[in-house]
């Protein structure tokens, strides 16, 4: 396998907020020149976004719990993902019927480090209002955040995530062709990375929806990495629609490429709190 130039490195996250250890790996690659693979390590929030935003006068509180059962082992200066537990609290406030702001608190727990605060991100998002009656749902999310150097040499990062989705009968489709950029850290000169995500699901019942979520990191948009070095991950996932106030999602991720953690178990539990007056017929 040939070595990767810095700009060829795939971004180590999937959908992520936190691309910390990827960057560290990229740095290692830069130093080692021939190091071939960027490892997926930033699994803090694994979620394909739908176009909907949180309604105004409502707050969504979510807990993302991700456990890497088969990840990479520790390397000098870089913590292992293997058997690491990442807990992320996401709080999203609806502003109006076409915008919201989300805030993230990332934490990590693993043997030898205990529970660590990793960083925080803020994520404003706007959507095409439903009343425009577009045939698909469209929104645009942008995310800026800081993460401690212990977890990511790139301490300030930015992401822009177009979101397109469509519900047709029992089927649901969503694509998130996200672009990522480092503002401070070793990757600052890498340019934009391409990290798409997608989802397809089917409503088996009103309460149970099952499908597949796909996450990838192709590296720089100007120099796509070889397949071996790309992050590719597929999650069979289940959504439980037990109540409009609750969001429940879980899945198991399989990463077939060398650059990807091989097995991740993820879960999301969210609760919506409505502050406005109840709508009355």
């Amino acid at each position, binding site marked *: 396998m040939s070595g990767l130039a810095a700009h060829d490195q795939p971004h180590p996250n999937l959908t992520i907020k936190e691309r910390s250890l990827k960057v560290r790996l990229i740095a290692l690659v830069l130093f080692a020149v021939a190091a071939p693979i960027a490892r997926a390590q930033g699994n803090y929030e694994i979620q394909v976004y739908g176009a909907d935003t949180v309604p105004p006068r409502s707050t969504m509180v979510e807990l993302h719990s991700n456990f890497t059962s088969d990840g990479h082992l520790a390397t000098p200066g870089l913590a292992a993902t293997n058997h690491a537990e990442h807990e992320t609290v996401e709080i999203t406030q609806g502003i109006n019927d076409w915008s919201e702001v989300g805030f993230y608190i990332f934490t990590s727990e693993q043997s030898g480090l205990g529970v660590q605060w990793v960083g925080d991100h803020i994520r404003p998002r706007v959507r095409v209002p439903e009343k425009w009656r577009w045939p698909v749902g469209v929104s645009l999310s942008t995310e800026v955040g800081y993460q401690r150097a212990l977890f990511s040499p790139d301490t300030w990062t930015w992401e822009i995530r177009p979101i397109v989705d469509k519900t047709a*009968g029992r089927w649901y489709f969503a694509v998130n062709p996200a672009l990522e950029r480092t503002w401070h850290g070793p990757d600052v000169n890498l340019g934009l990375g391409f990290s798409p995500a997608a989802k397809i699901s089917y409503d088996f019942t009103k309460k149970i929806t099952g499908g597949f979520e796909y996450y990838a990191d192709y590296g720089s948009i100007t120099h796509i990495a070889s397949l071996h070095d790309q992050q590719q991950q597929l999650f069979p996932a289940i959504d439980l629609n037990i109540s409009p106030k609750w969001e429940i999602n879980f899945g198991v991720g399989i990463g077939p490429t060398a650059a990807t953690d091989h097995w991740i178990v993820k879960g999301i539990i969210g609760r919506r709190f409505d502050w406005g007056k109840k709508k009355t017929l």
Partner: protein
Amino acid sequence: MRCHPPRQTDLRPAPAVSRRQFLGAATLAAAAAVARQAWPIPAATPTAPEYRIEIGEIDWELAPGKKLRTAAYNGQIPGPLIRFQEGKPVTLEIVNRLDREEIVHWHGQWIPSAVDGSMEEGSPMIPASGSTRIQFTPRPDGLHWYHTHAMARRSLKHGLFTGQSGPLYVEPRANPGQYDLEQFLVLHDWEPYYSASDDGSLMVNYAAASINGRMLGHAAPMQVRASQRVLFHIVNASATEAHWLSLPGHQFQVLALDGRPVPTQAKVDALRLGPAERISALVTMDAPGIWILGEPRATFRSAGMGTVIEYAGASGKAQFTPPAHLNWDYRAFADPVPAVQKPDVTLPLVFTSRFEGHGALDRWMINGKSWPDAASILLHTGQRHRLVFDNRSMDDHPIHLHRHVFELVSIRGAALSGIRKDVVIVEAGTQVEADLVADNPGSTLFHCHQQDHMDSGFMALFRYA
């Protein structure tokens, strides 16, 4: 013979129509004069229609810069006010200029199935670019309406999502209240779109709303004077939405529901009208100022559901304060002491839905069957049938019975009497009982008046044995 009336002069909030001007001594002759004003009666011949409705596409301006293209009656929204005399036969010609079949339903009228305007009952559809001529004898009196009864299915550009609706007033032999002004208000929602509801099923929302075809702030204010009594005749012509109306500082004295006088003319701060419901209510103008008569819920009011009422001599901006509580209970207008009637027959009607996907409309069922698979429900002439509306779904439903009225006898188990209607909202998870005396033989359609629900199977046919 074709008579395009002046645009809405008798329907829009201003200028209000004085009782003297319109009704004079409240004689039927004067009422007929009103009808002539809106729909001139041509030279009479034995077969000449007295009224003509032309269905066609129009460009309508809800507000400056807010235009929509939709189907409407006689080139206006709402369709022209039609006044009939109870018991006097009328002949109408209906011309369909659209490229699709249409049909006009005479909502609230006890007329034969063949002219009621429901394909399911046997009324013929009016072919594209075709016409029909119908004759019937209007009854009963009171506030009713006429509207399309065509299916919209998944299209949000057909059926009641269009502007095909208008008020129909059958002159009563005696006025239910003393009033100085009479005002017809037709509520409608516009620019529909599908969105996910809180219960996970697809639902219809709207980007705009209007009263008498205009969004709030874009119609001439209705002019009133202090101490005047204004009789409002209100029709909710929305395809799917229930609406509230309130007028700050004023109360509504409810005189009639769905055109039928109520036993108790109670005063309320706000009116609630489900889709297809009508209310006639008297307001005494005793709080001078400039007010918005509109939806208390800001979302709907900001979408346009409101109109301005201006007292003579008042100045400033129109004010609105929602009532402290939105309460509506049909029992407030019922007999003070419920009369107990024993039914001859009890007919359970269970409303349920079947999930078809988060991106699809639910399938609706009555007694486990969707239209057109639903079995007919047999009625026996002269018998009192107790209809038990058992709503086991998570939605409220405005339940409508064609060609008849039913009398409400219980809501959530609480007895009442004296309220006769043709539409009743059956709230989610509740039961309403209503007595139907079968006195108008012929096929009779029974359905939820939400366009998306009836298009998804929420219909059944009553047949006389």
